[in-house]
């Protein structure tokens, strides 16, 4: 646990250095930030908007925003936290603009066949257990991706992005009670579908 905490702290310190260098106009430092976090931003966007092309566009938009405003980032929160919030906000704006895909069913399988590969990082288990768990996680993600938007977005923000209920309510402009109910229902749906398999 201590090693994990130290490694997290090192990552944060490294980010602080890269951000400071970027503020001074060091393009190589900013490129390193892009290489480090582009897939993270893309994954967050992908699960929220359920569209590979749009997730790419959002990733580009997020990094352009970061690049143009990095001077204004005071570092009151970790860079990754700031980036995550910016990504989520950008996704919410896009989702508000288009409600077309709200009930569209997406097949994660077909996406994997199309070249969208799902990887698991920092997963220290035996190879056999790794494959078993990876399959289960993929099954859960397939269900999440196909959930109705009113369930999917709060669930992703709460369980995958660690947002608080209050934060989610603020972002989605809904009462905290509604958010809690929707997340509870979403978890129940996933559990039921997993039990049925």
């Amino acid at each position, binding site marked *: 646990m201590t090693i994990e905490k130290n490694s997290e702290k090192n990552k944060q310190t490294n980010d602080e250095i890269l951000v400071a260098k970027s503020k001074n106009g060091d393009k190589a430092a*900013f*490129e390193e930030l*892009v*290489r480090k976090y*582009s*897939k*993270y931003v*893309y*994954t967050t966007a*992908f*699960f929220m908007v359920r569209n*590979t092309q749009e*997730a*790419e566009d959002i*990733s*580009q*938009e997020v*990094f*352009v*925003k970061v*690049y*143009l*405003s990095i001077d*204004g*980032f*005071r570092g*009151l*929160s970790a860079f990754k936290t*700031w980036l995550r*919030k*910016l990504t989520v*906000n950008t996704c919410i*704006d896009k989702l508000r603009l288009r409600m077309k895909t709200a009930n569209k069913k997406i097949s994660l399988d077909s996406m994997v066949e*199309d*070249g*969208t*590969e*799902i*990887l*698991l*990082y*920092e*997963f220290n288990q035996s190879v056999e257990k790794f494959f078993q*768990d990876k399959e*289960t*996680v993929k099954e*859960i*993600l397939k269900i999440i991706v196909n959930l109705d938007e009113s369930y999917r977005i709060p669930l992703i923000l709460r*369980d*995958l992005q*660690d947002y*608080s209920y*209050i*934060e989610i309510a603020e972002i989605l402009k809904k009462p905290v009670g509604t958010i809690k109910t929707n997340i509870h229902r979403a*978890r129940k749906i*996933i*559990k039921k579908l*997993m039990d049925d398999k």
Partner: protein
Amino acid sequence: MNEFKKFLKVAKDIIVNPESNIEDKIIDKIKNISEEDKKILDEGFMEFLKKSNSKPYLFNKKLKENIGLMIFIGAMGIAAAGTFLFLEYKNYKKQKPVYKKRCQSL
């Protein structure tokens, strides 16, 4: 439910590999930012930037998120103050006869 939570925890480490080389696309985009691109720094974004750089806003948010802890700290404070007042009162009561005597002598 615990098993489910375990898998959701694992799901946090998931990375979806983009179809194309997204890193290079982003770097290319950054090298060629136009005046048009600067329009994405709209009112909503500036508001986000302002909030994320505001210590009072972040503190207030933390307070709101930890309301249970704040209530607990408040209750402990009231209990401590109550205990202190009670002890002072007890002390006062013990001293009362002397105080009364003094008053009478005056």
